[in-house]
């Protein structure tokens, strides 16, 4: 069994990017029944197209139906699940036992994966879900690597684990800070990430705030490239990247990095230092947040907490490819960040090593020469040294 690399997709473009850059499976939410309400999410027509594209490229499709539902949320659920089955979706990811049961009844071809929202962190709980018909368990992110090994010795249900991305500070599904402070329903897609806000810490009437930072519950993001070989050796069935609201560039670079590590392991029996270094480089391209290894080394102390939370946008993403003309060896690219003629850029190739090249000439849509690309979304034609496919990313 080869371990699957599972990537998020907020919309069709990001799904295609994830598949092209090496995801074995992709997951996303529909317009209903899914968390991450602020992600774009897929219409039924989008889902049909997504399945078609992913299956053509040998990737699987999982749809998140992972709200913690209220009574009124069940309207239309059966029809929706039957549609997912009809369109060839491979599995749903759900947190509600009722949704899983209904799915088994009305859409039995769909696998049921139990979401991390259920915080399954011991073998007895895994066996509970297996005895109730689940096809896969997504372990809680609070499980250490050693605990995961112990769990896997005692269960036969396929185990999926998170390897990268944002992380709930509290046990997933067991936090309603957002409901209380913002009236937004955390377990139905409205989480305002209030855990990342600043808090004063009091003991009785004594303020315990530290000079350098206020208290926060927020977690650093997961980045576990150092644990990938161990997870592959443990034969987890799937390694999941979080981030349905992340950009296509983020998805591309993170998926490429982990794909590199997985292929390195399966091709060579181990991950080389060189590949680890390369993967580390891809991790940094689109992400500016502090990261840590999650709970794999042990329950984190201060090193896992995010104080003074600030997100800054990455400027390294320059453009993505919209089309390529083999005869002229020119690509039409969509500009995202500033660059100029004579700048050295890098093609982040979905299927091979990156290619560096110098920008010699740029033409706008009317054929006029352009010296400086500084209009976001402008289409420019440039000569590139290798064949490039649509959605290929170019960065500095």
């Amino acid at each position: 069994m080869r371990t699957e690399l599972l990537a998020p997709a907020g919309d069709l473009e990001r799904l295609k990017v994830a598949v092209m850059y090496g995801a074995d499976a992709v997951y996303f939410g529909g317009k209903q029944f899914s968390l991450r309400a602020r992600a774009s999410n897929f219409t039924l027509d989008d889902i049909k197209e997504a399945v078609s594209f992913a299956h053509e490229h040998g990737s699987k499709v999982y749809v998140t139906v992972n709200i913690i539902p209220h009574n009124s949320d069940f309207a239309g659920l059966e029809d929706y699940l039957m549609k997912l089955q009809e369109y060839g979706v491979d599995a749903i990811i759900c947190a509600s036992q009722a949704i899983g049961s209904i799915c088994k009844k009305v859409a039995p071809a769909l696998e049921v994966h139990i979401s991390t929202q259920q915080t399954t962190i011991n073998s007895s709980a895994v066996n509970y879900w297996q005895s109730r018909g689940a096809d896969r368990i997504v372990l809680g992110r609070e499980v250490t690597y050693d605990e995961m090994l112990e769990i896997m010795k005692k269960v036969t249900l396929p185990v999926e684990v998170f390897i990268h991305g944002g992380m709930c500070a509290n046990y997933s599904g067991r936090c309603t800070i957002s409901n209380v402070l913002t009236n937004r329903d955390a377990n139905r897609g409205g989480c305002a990430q209030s855990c990342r806000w600043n808090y004063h810490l009091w003991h009785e009437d004594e303020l315990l705030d530290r000079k350098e930072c206020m208290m926060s519950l927020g977690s650093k993001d997961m980045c576990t490239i150092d644990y990938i070989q161990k997870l592959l050796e443990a034969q987890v069935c799937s390694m999941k990247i979080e981030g349905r609201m992340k950009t296509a560039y983020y998805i591309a670079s993170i998926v490429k990095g982990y794909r590199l590590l997985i292929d390195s392991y399966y091709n060579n029996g181990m991950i080389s230092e060189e590949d680890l270094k390369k993967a580390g480089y891809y991790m940094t391209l689109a992400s500016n947040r502090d990261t840590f290894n999650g709970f794999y080394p042990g329950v984190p102390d201060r090193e896992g907490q995010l104080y003074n939370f600030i997100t800054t946008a990455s400027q390294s993403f320059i453009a993505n490819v919209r089309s390529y003309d083999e005869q002229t060896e020119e690509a039409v690219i969509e500009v995202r960040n500033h660059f100029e003629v004579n700048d050295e850029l890098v093609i982040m190739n979905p299927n091979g090593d990156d290619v560096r090249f110098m920008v010699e000439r740029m033409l706008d849509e009317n054929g006029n020469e352009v010296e400086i690309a500084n209009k976001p979304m402008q289409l420019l034609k440039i000569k590139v040294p290798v064949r490039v496919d649509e959605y290929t990313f170019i960065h500095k």
Partner: protein
Amino acid sequence: MKDLFIYLRDPENIPRVTVDSVTGIIIADYAHSSSDHDLSRDAIRKAVNVIHACGRKAVVKTDRLFSEGEMAELHEYLEYLQQIGTDAIIYTDLGIKMILDEEIFTMKGIYAPETLLTDYYDINVLRNDGFDGCVISKDIPLGDVYEIINECPDYCYLRIHGPILIAYSRRRYISSYLEKKNTYLDSYYLQEESRQERLPIIEKECGSWLYDACLQSLSEVNRLLDTPVRGFIIDNVYMDDEYTMKTADLYDAVMNEEISSDEAVMTLKSFDSDIRYTDINDLRETQLDKESQ
């Protein structure tokens, strides 16, 4: 008769509960629950005996999630609880359900996953699956609560009083922030920088619990009594037993129509003016609830 379970920290106080409406006493140790107060196994055994001698059910809280390394000891603890005649446990971890399904266990289990039971479809799945009972999530609008109770008659327990848990983590938040590994049990609070309210927080070796205001249901309890709810729970975390017993007396007086709910609320607030309350009627509909109407 509907159940009314109340949580007491100190077994010495068990005989002091005199109101007839209390049908069970909840106790807990430190290691296997959210409680900040410890009871030795022997103290639990004696407490169970005293509770039974008082003609009430003995209920033990095991309302934590358990890591893999704790499971063997947890199993042994549950065997002990069964052996000493515990009537029921209140639990959060589905791993415990698998243990209770073993033939040796006859002790009842009441599943209380805090935020996860928010609809009657899920609760009916649990009922059909042999769960002995469950505690409805206490952060959903009251209208939803009534729907659930009516769709799942004589099955659901409702927390009618006690601090509202809003976050539970395996992380040790205060130790991490102060860089001083310790337990932080008594009178620690978080205050979001732009707000006035203080949120009680407890940190133990196994994680942190963050609470909002204290839920109270004095104005609603009689209407709830007319529903097919199976029972009520008066929970507690950081207030003392005196407070809990006086609160139970108040609910009893309201249920027996000895005082009005308005009068009871005023009395409740006089117990400790520092306690912030949320009336069960004021549990807010989220933006999503409003949009789906």
